């Protein structure tokens, strides 16, 4: 009996370790995808360059590795749920993780498709193509992002080395992965609840507030105020006005 008990405890502990690993991987995946989004947002702008494209590829490859590893592990985790007796909280945690993973994958898939469209619209194969890039006023500030991506650590990064696919295959692969995952594991989305209440993230980030940015980014909704006032020529004070036209 005690042996069984011990094995169950070991199993539970192992399980929880496993779960923690997956959660860390999930965080990493979030980080990678958000960096990816920032990079993709610069595609086609004046900050676009071959360096950017390379960075995008690398980030994508990293995300792919994390994705595939995480999907396997989560599958194992959830299928193990069915076989062994597990506490309700554990099961709920796994299911939540599952749902979050699927959300991330969906989001990432959208970003990939946008990236594909943009790369198709703004090819950088020749030097003349640089003329078609849109001037957004952004200079090359993506080194920091690249560094951030490089800092991401995944538990199994060293263990598994797969060749990273090109963009189209990646998209196709992700789509099939999504549909497969949704079919194989019957997890009810609505049963998962958020761990934190609404508005909680406000208190979470104690970073420097960037107040000056806010003044700049005040958007005057043109319909409410009279458009005459918006177009007044020079603003004497220290505030800056931003008006959207067009």
């Amino acid at each position, binding site marked *: 009996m005690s042996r069984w008990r011990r094995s169950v405890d070991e199993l539970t502990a192992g399980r929880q370790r496993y779960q923690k690993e997956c959660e860390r991987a999930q965080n990493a995946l979030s980080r990678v995808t958000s960096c990816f989004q920032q990079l993709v947002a610069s595609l086609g702008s004046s900050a676009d360059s071959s360096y950017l494209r390379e960075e995008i590829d690398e980030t994508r490859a990293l995300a792919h590795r994390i994705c595939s590893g995480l999907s396997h592990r989560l599958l194992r985790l959830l299928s193990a749920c069915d076989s062994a007796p597990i506490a309700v909280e554990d099961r709920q945690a796994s299911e939540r993780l599952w749902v*979050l993973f699927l959300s*991330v994958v969906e989001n990432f898939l959208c970003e990939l498709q946008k990236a594909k469209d943009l790369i198709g619209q703004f090819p950088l194969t020749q030097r003349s193509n640089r003329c078609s890039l849109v001037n957004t006023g952004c*200079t090359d*500030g993506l080194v920091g992002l690249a560094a951030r991506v490089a800092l991401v650590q995944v538990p199994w990064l060293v263990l598994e080395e797969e060749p990273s696919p090109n963009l189209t295959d990646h998209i196709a692969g992700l789509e099939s992965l999504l549909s497969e995952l949704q079919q194989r594991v019957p997890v009810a989305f609505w049963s998962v609840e958020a761990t934190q209440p*609404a508005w909680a993230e406000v208190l*979470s980030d104690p970073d420097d507030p960037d107040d000056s940015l806010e003044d*700049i980014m005040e958007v005057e909704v043109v319909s409410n105020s009279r458009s005459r006032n918006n177009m007044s020529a020079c603003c004497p004070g220290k505030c800056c*006005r931003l008006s959207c036209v067009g």
Partner: protein
Amino acid sequence: MKWLFVVFIFLESDKNLTGLSLCSLLFQTPYFWPTQQWPVEDTDYAIYLAKRNIRKKGILELHEQEQYNHLHKWMNHKWDFIVMQAKEQYRAAKERKKPDRVVFDCQERAYWVVHRPPPGTVSAMDYGLDRRTDPNADETQTPDCYERIMIFTQQSIMRPRVKSSVSIGALVKYCATYSGHDPFLSKCLPSNPWLTDDSTFWTLNMHNVEIPTKMRVERWTFSFKELLSDPRGRDDFRLFLKKEFSGENLAFWEGCEDLKWGTAVTMREKAEQIYKTFLARGAPRWINIDGKTMEITVKGLKHPHRYVLDAAQTHIYMLMKKDSYGRYLKSPVFKETLKKAICPEEHKFNEVQLEQNARNRRPSLSPIVIRQQEQEQRAKMAANAPVDITQLCRFTTPVPHLAVYSGIPDPPSVTASPSFPFLAHTPVCPSPISVALDSTSASERRLETSEGEGNMEARAPDGGNLSKSRMALSLRRLLKRGCSPSAMFASLSPKCHTAATASSRIQPIMPDEPSHAPPRRIGNFFHIKVDIPPECRIYPIESEDEDEENRPASRDRVGTEEIICPWESLSRQNGTGMSQWEETPGKTQNLLERQYFRSTLGAS
């Protein structure tokens, strides 16, 4: 909309942002372009709101807060992901250089302002309906396509053309007429509310205002359409017509408009109501339209649809336009209105007053309220609707043998001449119609009886087929006047002299002589037969020929009882013979051109 301008106006003294120079025009990064037509996901919006929440420490705009709560509720299962992603994106954005970060944040904000507009703003992404086909797409060259091209070119050839000088002349005339009334081109008295925020102009020009402005009254003189389309003008015109006892025309026209623009459910009843009130024999407000139109209308009313009364309505419209409108403009009613019309003084607001006006802006009366008021008014008017034709005729006494008047009189002396209508109206006992028409055309009648000449007066019909036949002209006038033909024909046809002089009264035909009744289906309005049920109090000019077989039945039914609509009765309407006056069936007539006139009459 490929891009959004994002115009920055920076102060150079802001040390943090010296990277961006003053007033540079920047474009949005293609990632945020609406033309990409990528789906705008709520998930992304939730992430954006969470990010903004972090940045602004919980101080979001009201609609953003609502959206946030809404999304938190509906995306609760992935809320952890959303928050995590928001945090990560926030931190990732921090890795960029500050000017770039500002730019990106502004662009993202602009993107979401477009795709999730704040309430009360016009959505920038609104656009109309998609067309069924894309006009820029290459059309496949199928036989169907060629057929359509052929039809199109054939129709282009057949289209009527106008010389450009004529059309330009019309445009010039229009501009010259209306330029003084255009608020863009000339001053708007007292002041243009859009410019000065003072709504006096609108209050002075409301629908049911007592005293109109001079400009408004002047516009009524431009064209009949202007008069009718202005509610106040229409009221004035209605008053005038009431005085002339021809208000039924306008009422009929309005009824037709109501039918045309009303809901489909009410159409059938409206059509019936209009028929009973205006078109049927013995109708309380009978209108005077010619036989052909009446025939078409009644035939159409068997299967009523929205435009069934169109022919009659056009007829009446042209009648009012050619006849009543001119008289209205010379009438005392109009002159009175013109005299009383006000000409407001121009406002001269200074800056302070303008600002005050802007602050005191109030919403106007809700259109729902206005519509309700209009409906109430209409109901009130309908309740007090005048019965235009009074019951003064002495033929109201129920004398059965006087009931029927055939269009073809017996006396042989008259058979040689074309049959002319004996009408129930005589100078002895004029119906209000004839009174109305007579009062204004008395002079003309005098003129014509004295001269007997077929001179065209100013109010000759605008038809194209006017021959100068005196007979024709007088018959037209006859119909309009409703006066006895006697005086007319006395001067015109010696053959009818005897009959004419003797027939200062109506010649009654015994009802037991149906053999002389003309064949049924006679659309010719000159061949007038009047069938008057004894109890009926009105003697309209009847151009339709409800024949004898109908008569006994109708006499029992029609009268004090409900007027039977032709599609309800079991009458057999198809005639066999045709009189010499009738048009060849199947030939479509241009009613406007031949409204008063039949060229065939010239033959006799």
